[in-house]
């Protein structure tokens, strides 16, 4: 819980933007508290997206998106090592199937060079087929971007949050900010279920809720118009189908349906783009799924639909206006700094957004004094399935729970699950365990391990089974058996 009543800076939102900001600010002699309304960090847009570290040829030159994408992409190379991120720099191909699309590739190449993207080149039909034999025979050529990568966005947010905590930041989950208190147009603090916390600065990194947080502070200068994207994820046995991120040539309205490997060896297709007024609308639809299947098959005709293991959708936290990121001090309320409207390439830009927010704070008069004790490195997590037999044997000798495999599809041991629960930003829900350990992410989708992970959560958190949640605040999984009084049900 929160046993302080004052801090320097409050960050609202524990997605990749908020956690990257918290980690950046933890480099300085500042007290920082991050509030996340969900039981887990990274549980909003961060967990459901294309998981791509974009090269940066797409955004309009001169925009924040262009500038921060290219900078962010570079920063991930250092972060990968420091924080132990799972990143694969596999490169991306924008695939053209006719002359008109080939022209688009030339435009993208020029735009990319203006944005400072290195290594771009246009490949011939033969070169593309050589790299991706399963690609459509209609291929005319492709734009190759070697600096594009794939990663695990949730893992990155978790690593940012854990490193922030390691360096003194308080991360409070399950805790929506209910009120932002101002006096004479200046922020004086925030109110949550833990009471009032005095602070002069609030960073608004609230994703799809950024406009509502802004309004809490009296600033209604923008609105978030969420745009939903649906995805289909496939079994690992499909991993040889293609090797790079594959985009269709973009149209005026959309980057289009892409296909990509994941860092863990699955493949996925998506997203489409649908405006939605409901900020919790992450439902998939028959039409939407058919749309992405049909479009994905235009690039990879042999897409094996029978190997689909799950479908999901995520919301892009797009702002109204020109569509660029909103990273600036509020023009209405002093002490409020927006990191809002973060849609693609938001994941790639996150560390650069964090740098920008810290320089805004400096301009606002916050003293940024480097913390001597700042430790940029996260200790590596143990992933049992990736170890040699000798290393596995040693671990089990130290802790027998490494010898009990709970998730059979992904070979996740009980010890890894227990550690995920007791880490500094520990898992509190079934899906939080899944995102940290992959228990339940395999082909059986938790059919076997779900009840077992539920029991481990209850035991380790010392709560009843009936208090274990799937993900969101009210997503309870199981009920106690009923007594003789079943009136409520049978009525």
């Amino acid at each position, binding site marked *: 819980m929160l046993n302080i009543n004052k801090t320097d800076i409050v960050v609202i939102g524990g997605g990749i933007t908020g956690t990257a900001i918290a980690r950046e600010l933890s480099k300085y002699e500042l007290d920082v508290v991050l509030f996340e309304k969900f039981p887990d960090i990274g549980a909003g847009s961060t967990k459901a997206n294309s998981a791509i570290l974009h090269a940066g040829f797409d955004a309009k030159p001169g925009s924040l998106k262009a500038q921060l994408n290219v900078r962010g992409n570079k920063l991930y190379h250092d972060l990968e090592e420091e924080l132990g991120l799972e990143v694969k720099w596999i490169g991306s191909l924008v695939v053209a199937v006719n002359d008109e699309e080939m022209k688009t590739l030339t435009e993208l190449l020029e735009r990319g060079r203006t944005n400072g993207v290195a290594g771009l080149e246009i490949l011939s039909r033969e070169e593309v087929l050589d790299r991706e034999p399963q690609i459509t025979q209609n291929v005319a050529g492709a734009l190759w971007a070697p600096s594009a990568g794939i990663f695990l966005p949730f893992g990155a947010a978790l690593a940012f949050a854990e490193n922030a905590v390691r360096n003194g930041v308080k991360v409070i989950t399950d805790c929506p900010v209910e009120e932002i208190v101002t006096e004479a147009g200046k922020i004086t603090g925030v109110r949550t279920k833990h009471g009032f916390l005095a602070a002069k600065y609030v960073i608004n990194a609230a994703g799809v809720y950024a406009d509502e947080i802004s309004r809490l502070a009296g600033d209604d200068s923008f609105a978030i118009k969420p745009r939903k994207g649906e995805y289909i994820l496939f079994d690992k046995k499909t991993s040889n189908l293609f090797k790079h991120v594959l985009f269709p040539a973009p149209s005026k309205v959309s980057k289009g349906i892409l296909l990509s490997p994941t860092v863990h060896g699955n493949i996925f297709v998506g997203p489409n783009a649908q405006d939605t007024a409901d900020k919790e609308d992450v*439902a998939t639809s028959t039409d939407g*799924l058919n749309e992405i299947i049909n479009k994905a098959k235009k690039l990879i005709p042999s897409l094996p639909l029978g190997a689909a293991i*799950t*479908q999901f959708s995520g919301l892009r936290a797009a702002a109204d206006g020109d569509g660029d990121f909103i990273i600036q001090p509020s023009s209405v309320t002093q002490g409020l700094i927006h990191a809002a409207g973060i849609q693609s390439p938001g994941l790639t830009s996150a560390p650069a957004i964090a740098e920008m927010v810290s320089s805004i704070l400096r301009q606002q008069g916050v003293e940024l004094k480097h913390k001597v004790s700042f430790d940029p490195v996260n200790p590596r997590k143990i992933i049992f399935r990736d170890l040699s037999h000798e290393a*596995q044997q040693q671990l089990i000798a130290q802790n027998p729970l490494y010898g009990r495999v709970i998730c059979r599809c992904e070979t996740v041991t009980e010890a890894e699950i227990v550690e995920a629960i007791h880490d500094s930003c520990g898992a509190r829900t079934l899906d939080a365990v899944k995102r940290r350990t992959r228990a339940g992410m395999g082909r*059986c989708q938790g*059919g076997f391990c779900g009840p077992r992970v539920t029991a481990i959560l209850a035991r380790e958190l010392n709560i009843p089974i009936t208090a274990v949640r799937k993900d969101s605040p009210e997503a309870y999984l199981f*009920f106690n058996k009923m007594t003789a009084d079943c009136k409520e049900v049978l009525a």
Partner: protein
Amino acid sequence: MSQRIYDVAIIGGGPAGLAAAYGARQAGAESVLVIERDRELGGILQQCIHNGFGLHKFQEELTGPGYASRYIKLIRQDAKIEVMLDTMVLEVAADKSIWAVNPKFGLMQIATKAVIFTMGCRERTRGAIRIPGYRPAGVFTAGAAQRMVNMEGYLPGKKIVILGSGDIGLIMARRMSLEGAKVQGVLEIMPYSNGLTRNIVQCLEDYDIPLYLSHTITKIHGAERVTGITCAAVDGKMQPIPGTEFDIECDCLLLSVGLIPENELSQAVGVKLDAITSGPVVNQLRQTSLPGFFAAGNVVHVHDLVDFVSEEGGIAGKYAAQYARGNLSAPVRTITVTAGTGVRTVVPQQIDVPATVIEPVRLFMRVTQPDKKIAISITSADQTLVSRRLPVAKPSEMIVIEMPASKLEEAGEQLTFSIQTQ
């Protein structure tokens, strides 16, 4: 861990594995190992607390745990059968060494002369059939929910909709009703149920639970916990018919939408799989395409009755023991068994005929669609060797046909099972 070499190592201690262990010992195996990942033997039977098991095998109606206990007693009495519980097999190598892990002994490399795969099957998930909608808490596969109710003592919900009228779905409809929950309905995309007739009667009709045939779910509602579903009638291509949608309120959706033989281990070592059964191609001895690797039960093809799982386990055990002891004679010729008109699967897919044909072979088959008054014929080179008439046949009910030894001698290189409607 001892450095011994087992005669037979069995992966999975469910009904197939138990019967295989017993069968292997009866046939002279000197050392048998059963590796089980759960905390007790018996596999899925331990959560099947309803009755109806063992009518063929024991001529009695037992519960799942009751049925399992008959075999567990036999296994536990035999000092030459070793059981490792709480143990996960990570890998089986081509030289038959088995990598397994448990908290007590850590990582083990186990040597054996013969391997029997009896890993059973897993449930098809929501993702595999692409049900659209939210992803709230309260969507469970029926088997996972059954384990929670029957073994752990918790309810998956209080107002239930079940998708799929396979046996597990039907059994869970009754089970949840007995727990005081309201089962709002069972939806089935096919125009007929995939469960045993006795389960339709005893689990749905007796509890006034509606069965919606040719219906499927088009959306799951509820951002956090399930609040309901939208369903629709489907056309002949199993696509939802616009305008037929209606909502059913529920706090829980149970999925009984098929079982998939769990063959990751067998596939990784190179065992050939049958595209239709999703299990290994086996001969009548339940030997797979790799010599010394056997398979039985739901890992080979999904059964509807445990009695036949035990039968298969017993066969695999017997011949794995003979293989391990060097007593399995080489076949002189091979007969390929194929599914012809109206037949979906036949197991075994192959009959290896030894120098002297002495034993008849029992074949397990399934039809492609329900029908009345059918004739099953087994032909070879245009000659009908066996034929049988049945008043009713359903895809959900496995048909057993015995091929006498004399008929096997007459058969050529191929046997074709087909259905004629009268």
